């Protein structure tokens, strides 16, 4: 019996997990002899087809096993992947590429990647998820070609690795993953996002983790147990009975807290001393409405409309858009406002019918409202559809424009809005009486111009993801800059504080609809800074409501003041965590 090893890392996703280790290593399994793969055993075409057939067999077996466990929905994913593995579209392309390059492994990877990009470009939410499935299939065929063996967990386990690539996390049936502990990675790592969506704990950046786990015996040993707390970032390798009991107690506490959170759902969100905070949901399609309402959303702070524009060869008609908006407006009714965001497209998203020029730097390019200078019809049609949907549903529609950077952008928005209504009135079509109009604050210039912009509109909604990227000049997708992608950085918080001050002077409310609003600690800081409304994915609302209920306005004021003066995001997070910890004692 070896001693417990206590380690700590960066909290990625909350929750407690206790269980055996599933050790993932990128190096080929020692069980596979060097050159044990199919590469070199035949022509590139022959080895690709053989590896594809073997991969399909593995995926079908995985599907069968899950079906045997009664998990039909998950099994269906592997069935579809099995078909993809031998799909003519994928294989013919891979074979053609291999004939040119002579490298079957790279050919399969490129072919899978090209199909995945095509699916992602359709950019309907369901199909983008399938893009990851295709890449995953490509990675699997590659492993068969190279003779690498990936032993998936056979019992529910905690994944331990330096980092978990998407192709691997996607292969683990969700029920077999209790938690994720990484020695590398960042808070924005794919594995962390996956963990949050599965509701399992994740901890990243755990120094000494691999040594403590591997030191105990052969890698991939399922015998080593781990206890982890995704809120504190603590990891205990081979916990003693006493430590295991402590983590079981924390697990029970957490279950109670989560039950409290769901009980709070029936009540409006408020601080412990009774100050109301408007808690609303982000939705991506009309089908998300039910989930948002069930989670207790008081409305929608961000209704993304891109789903209407992607995945097709011609722009959506005014009628088609009107129907989609009306459905959502009716689902939420007059008491629960729905903020429709005008299409945030262009730049990095391929929209065939717009024939947009390719840009070197799409995030700094002709995107969203900027498109409307040369191409106003897209927004005019959308605005007419919204005016009509408001009339049809009998509510005042709320609208906001993304990427507004200057007063000229706002001039354009307001004139298009009014022009859209005039057109309808001219044709004697029903239009809402008025439209509550706001802008997204995600470009730093808009934050600087907040006092002037605020006087001309009804509300601000801060998009913290893009604002963070632009304030810190750090590409959201660049893992090497993970440390700069934290919306709790005091520089971002100062920008938010400036927006709130500008809004207050003009008497308009400020919402936040970025990921920060759905993070309980982030929510405390935002409300402390004077934000009136938080909009987050439905799954985050319970946690935010529970956090708010445990803090008072004076505590939040003090938290905001200290956060603005803090040296870095980590310090801000600790300050916010102390507010939560302090209340429960």
């Amino acid at each position, binding site marked *: 019996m070896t001693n417990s090893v206590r380690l700590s890392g960066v909290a990625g996703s909350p929750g407690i997990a206790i269980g055996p280790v599933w050790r993932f290593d990128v190096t080929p399994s020692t069980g596979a002899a060097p050159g044990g793969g199919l590469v070199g055993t035949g022509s590139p075409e022959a080895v690709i087809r053989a590896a594809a057939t073997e991969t399909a067999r593995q995926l079908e077996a995985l599907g069968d096993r899950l079906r045997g466990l009664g998990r039909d929905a998950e099994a*269906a994913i592997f069935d579809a992947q099995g078909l993809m593995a031998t799909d003519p*579209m994928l294989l013919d392309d891979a074979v053609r590429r291999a004939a040119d390059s002579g490298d079957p492994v790279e050919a399969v990877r490129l072919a899978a990647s090209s199909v995945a990009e095509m699916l992602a470009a359709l950019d*309907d939410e369901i199909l983008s998820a399938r893009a990851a499935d295709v890449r995953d299939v490509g990675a699997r065929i590659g492993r068969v070609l190279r003779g690498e063996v990936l032993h998936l967990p056979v019992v529910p386990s905690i994944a331990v690795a330096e980092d978990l690539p998407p192709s691997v996390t996607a292969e683990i049936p969700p029920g077999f993953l209790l938690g994720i502990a990484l020695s590398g990675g960042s808070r924005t790592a794919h594995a962390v996002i996956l963990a949050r969506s599965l509701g399992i704990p994740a901890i990243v950046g755990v120094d000494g983790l691999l040594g403590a786990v591997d030191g105990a015996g052969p890698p991939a040993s399922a015998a080593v147990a781990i206890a982890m707390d995704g809120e504190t970032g603590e990891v205990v390798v081979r916990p003693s009975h006493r430590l295991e009991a402590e983590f079981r107690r924390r697990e029970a506490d957490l279950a109670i807290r989560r039950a409290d959170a769901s009980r709070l759902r029936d009540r409006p969100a408020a601080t412990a001393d009774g100050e109301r905070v408007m808690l609303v949901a982000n939705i991506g399609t009309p089908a998300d409405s039910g989930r948002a309402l069930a989670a207790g959303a008081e409305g929608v702070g961000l209704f993304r409309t891109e789903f209407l524009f992607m*995945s097709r*060869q*011609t722009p959506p008609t005014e009628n088609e858009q009107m129907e989609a908006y009306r459905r959502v407006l009716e689902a939420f009714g007059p008491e629960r406002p729905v903020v429709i965001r005008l299409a945030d497209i262009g730049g990095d998203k391929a929209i065939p019918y717009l024939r947009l020029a390719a840009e070197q730097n799409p995030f700094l390019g002709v995107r969203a409202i900027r498109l409307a200078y040369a191409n106003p019809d897209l927004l005019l049609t959308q605005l007419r559809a919204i005016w009509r949907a408001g009339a049809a549903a009998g509510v005042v529609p709320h609208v906001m424009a993304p990427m507004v950077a200057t007063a000229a952008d706002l001039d354009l928005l307001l004139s298009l809005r009014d022009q859209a209504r005039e057109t309808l009135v001219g044709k004697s079509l029903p239009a809402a009486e008025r439209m509550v109009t706001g802008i997204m604050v995600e470009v730093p210039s808009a934050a600087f111009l907040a006092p002037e912009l605020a006087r001309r509109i009804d509300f601000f909604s801060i998009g913290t993801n893009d604002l963070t990227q632009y304030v810190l000049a750090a590409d959201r997708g660049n893992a090497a800059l993970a440390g700069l992608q934290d919306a709790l950085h005091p520089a971002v918080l100062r920008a938010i504080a400036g927006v709130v001050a500008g809004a207050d002077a003009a008497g308009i409310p400020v919402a936040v609809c970025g990921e920060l609003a759905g993070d309980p600690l982030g929510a405390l800081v935002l409300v402390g800074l004077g934000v009136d409304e938080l909009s987050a994915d439905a799954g985050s609302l319970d946690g935010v409501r529970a956090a708010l209920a445990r803090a008072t306005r004076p505590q939040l004021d003090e938290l905001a003041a200290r956060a603005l003066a803090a040296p870095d995001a980590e310090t801000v997070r600790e300050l916010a965590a102390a507010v939560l910890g302090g209340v429960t004692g």
Partner: protein
Amino acid sequence: MRTDEMEIRNPSGLHARPAALFVKSASGFVASIRLENLTTGSAAVDAKSILGVMSSGAARGHRIRVTADGTDEEAALDTIRELVATGIGEEVDG
């Protein structure tokens, strides 16, 4: 060669699971079978390719055209018509 047009009625369209069923069904015939999404005007794809079928982006309410060419083309079209009409393994409401 035979061809027919039909409307996708199941909630999730020809995504993932329904696409897999569609492809499995089409693959049971020797006839070559092509699928076009008339609503989006996408190019014809191989109905025996799940990636092709998914890339047609056929959602609920879209009209598709299926063309079968081969000895069992008539049976192939009958089977696919029936599959689409009954919701491709999903509940069809309204």
